[in-house]
């Protein structure tokens, strides 16, 4: 019973955000994208959990924080299957998939070393050209890269 209580202490979230169904290989990239490292909130990260839908999944729980939609949608780049649950008073009050925008500005580094965006102080910009799997094309040099392999700035 002691074990159950401990598990409950980790799992329960009074208020905050749960991001579920993140493919295990990209979990820590998702953590990076959300900027969780610099937060004071209570954060729980689980990985390699069994998932009926995607095999092995990761999950991120952040207490007392609601992320802006634009921040959450960054995750769609690497984890288009992710689902965001908003928790109020232990209840899920909203549940929605992440949405990949058509244009991604200032998040990803271009993989082409000869791209102007890697040689000039400027924001990077990518257009989404494929959604399953996610493929993005650099607005400047036209270099394409898979979302899951994209290097986060």
């Amino acid at each position, binding site marked *: 019973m002691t074990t159950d209580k401990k598990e409950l202490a980790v799992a329960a979230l009074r208020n905050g955000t749960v991001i579920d169904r993140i493919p295990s290989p990209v979990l820590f990239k998702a953590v990076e994208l959300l900027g969780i490292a610099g937060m004071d909130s209570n954060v729980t990260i689980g990985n390699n959990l069994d998932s009926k839908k995607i095999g092995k999944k990761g999950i991120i729980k952040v207490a007392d924080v609601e992320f802006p939609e634009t921040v959450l949608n960054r995750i769609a780049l690497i984890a288009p299957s992710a689902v965001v649950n908003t928790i109020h008073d232990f209840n899920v009050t909203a549940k929605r998939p992440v949405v990949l925008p058509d244009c991604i500005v200032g998040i990803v580094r271009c993989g*082409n070393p*000869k*791209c*102007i*965006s890697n*040689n*000039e*102080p*400027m924001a990077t910009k990518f257009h989404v050209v494929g959604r399953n799997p996610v493929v993005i094309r*650099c*607005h*400047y*040099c*036209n*270099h*394409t890269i898979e979302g899951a392999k994209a290097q986060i700035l």
Partner: protein
Amino acid sequence: MPIIVMNKNSLVSISDISRDEMLDLLRRARYFEENPDSKILDGKIVATLFFEPSTRTRLSFETAVNRLGGRVIGFSDAATTSSSKGETLKDTIKMVSNYVDLIVMRHYLEGAARYATEVTSVPVINAGDGANQHPSQTMLDLYSILKTQGTLENLTITMVGDLKYGRTVHSLLMAMQYFNPTFNFVACPELRMPQEYKDFCDEHGIKYNETTEFSPEVINSSDIIYMTRVQRERFSDIMEYERVKDRYTLHNDMLADSKPTLRILHPLPRVNEIDRDVDDNPKAYYFEQARNGLFARQAIITRALGIDPEK
């Protein structure tokens, strides 16, 4: 911070312009060929900013401006500019924008011209950005095809050599999407047409055949043969380069049964891919093709400045 609206008359990539705009540029090119000394750029100043040397392209653009009565400022090597002191491209472009009506730029970094259009309201013409885009070359190729065939529609175009890295063949392929072409892609496996361009053909209903053999069937079915140079610097394995470099050389006797209207194009410079014995064949068109660059560039310059030569 003031809002800068990108000048819609800039030309960064051939995919920026529609079929109608392409045809308008070709009409303009024809006009300039027939009227070589229209002084319609009187009072205009054009900057040619060549962060990477390219004598052929720079001289062609500068001749185009001079023939139209405009003036040119600029540089032909970034080593002589403040970019060698660490100045950003943005600062150079903004500084030059204070002086000129139009910027023609070539840069060794890919995407440089696109970025330039975002930091200035002066129109920008991309004269080549690394291995990325070179739209004035495509326009002169289109003009050469139109001039020699009388149409751009329903032609069989054979592309030979380096189809993997050659930006001219990629841009020409994309530009021809409006004109129902059939392509033959002739290349060794190491240099074959990238999948994304074959996907582009499939998406746009463009017919193509891919082969490693530069065979009589391929040659004799062609309206245009577009030869390209296999560039040594593309190979990490020099033995591989030696093995493939002379694989696709066009000799005069290979043209014996080709169509009378066939023309051979090449973006130049050539090395071994077209034997000198082809030069005297009336089907060799590569030197005239280079001359067409002048008219195509005059067309692009006047469009960028919003000047209609026929008014």
